[in-house]
């Protein structure tokens, strides 16, 4: 299988603090991979380095075999990002936001594309609504709609179901699995909900203190550590320094 993301000896220091410390991992094409770890493990910093929002102190990030210093535009044209903690401008309508981001990606036949996606995510009814008026669930769906505008080959999702009620969270998971299945998108996923991770992830990568700890298929990791579920594996790894 081809690796979509390859991270080698990645380091990020903020002053004397090493947020990411020699991290390495790979994400294979067409999989949903969970990037897991306790608070402060370095997940968000890693995701932001994968998006070129933070410059690494040292190490290598290759996405589709390319590096940001030589192919930033190519890489970002083929990936997208969604997080409930990062909302789209509230002072634009839902439709205006989708048009703006579609134009930024240079999407051809943009209105047709938006038309297709708003049905997929069931957001047609509030296209004219101001974004600041949306509920959390609606915002999540809007963020995911935006994230698919450019037909990304790689999606980085930072806790996409955080702060959603169980019903909307379940719908969101079903949507993500559908996206992955129908579009063959590779997804890198962070979450603190281990039940959810077990449900949707093909593989998980555990990091702690900015370092790689372990990786594998969720069921195999549960077996390897001799626990009853992934939540216990998480606790085991998080409490072992």
């Amino acid at each position, binding site marked *: 299988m081809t690796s979509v993301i390859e991270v080698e000896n990645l380091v990020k220091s903020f002053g004397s603090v090493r947020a990411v410390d020699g991290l390495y991992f790979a994400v294979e094409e067409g999989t949903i991979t969970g990037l897991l770890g306790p608070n402060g493990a370095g997940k968000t910093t890693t995701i932001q380095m994968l998006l070129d929002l933070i410059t690494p102190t040292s190490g290598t990030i290759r996405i589709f075999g390319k590096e940001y210093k030589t192919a930033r535009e190519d890489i970002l044209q083929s990936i997208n990002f969604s997080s409930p903690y990062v909302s789209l401008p509230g*002072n634009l309508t839902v439709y205006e936001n989708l048009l703006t981001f579609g134009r930024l990606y240079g999407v051809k036949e943009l209105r047709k594309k938006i038309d297709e996606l708003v049905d997929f995510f069931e957001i047609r009814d509030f296209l004219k609504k101001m974004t600041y008026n949306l509920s959390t669930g609606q915002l999540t769906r809007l963020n995911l709609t935006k994230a698919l505008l450019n037909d990304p080959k790689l999606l980085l999702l930072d806790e996409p179901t955080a702060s959603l009620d169980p019903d909307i969270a379940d719908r969101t998971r079903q949507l993500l699995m559908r996206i992955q299945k129908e579009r063959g998108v590779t997804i890198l996923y962070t979450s603190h909900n281990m039940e959810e991770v077990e449900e949707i992830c093909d593989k998980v990568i555990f990091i702690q203190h900015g370092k790689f700890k372990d990786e594998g298929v969720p069921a195999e990791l549960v077996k390897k550590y001799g626990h009853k579920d992934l939540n216990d594996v998480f606790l085991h790894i998080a409490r072992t320094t």
Partner: protein
Amino acid sequence: MSGFWPLYIGICLELVSWLLGFNFMKFHRINALLIRHMYLFKRSFPRIMDIVYWPVMDILVWGFLSLYIDTLHITGFNAITVLLGAVVFWDFLNQSQKSVSIAFLEEVWEKNLLNIFVTPLRLSEFLGATVLVGVVRIFLVGIVLSSLSYLFYHFNLFSLGFYLIPFVLNLFLFGWSLGIFTNAIILRFGTSAQILAFGFIILIQPFSAVFYPVSALPSGLQVVAGLLPSTYVFEGMRSVLSTGSLPTALLVGAFATNAVYLILTLWFFARMFAYVKREGKLLKLEG
């Protein structure tokens, strides 16, 4: 919405870029941000007021003062032309700086920098878009100022002649430099420095010889005045009005100092952007 006019600007920009063979900017991305800002103007009365309010107040205060000075019959001094012309030009400078800064702050206030910089948008395109938002804003201000000057004081801005055009262009360039500089400071120090977007321009007004000649300044401050492109512009404007010919030395001075400021501020902004990316502060500009 499909007929929204900035789309046509975008098409023109794409055409220009194709004709000139530019490959350092994709104009569809600049256009995307330009239209995003136009959406805000379209529905926001306070934003429109911000464009109209200050220039109107300036025109009223300085216009009536000019009318009063004219009644004093000072030989060789046409107060309406000199003072009102200076006010209009000052507002061009003020608005070009403010519009670049506010276009940037709109993204900061909406916490939208992450969203736009995870797209293939380049820094040059981002800055290009803020400058274009400024052009639209200045165009609107120009309409307001020229109409009011003519209606209230029979002062026709366009009667100043074509020689003033390169000077006005220099004001825009200097305004954009100042805007980019204040944006770089906001990047470095966060939104606690956003007051600069609204007040920084006032710092240069006393030294720019807006309403009086450079010779009216103490000799030490004349040196400071000589470092500012705006000084050459306002001196040049008065020279055009009094002699009717183009003061080449002043125009060269304006372009030369502007070139230096543009290079320095673009370099400074790029440095500050690299700094916030290194420090992970791009998403934490508040405070």
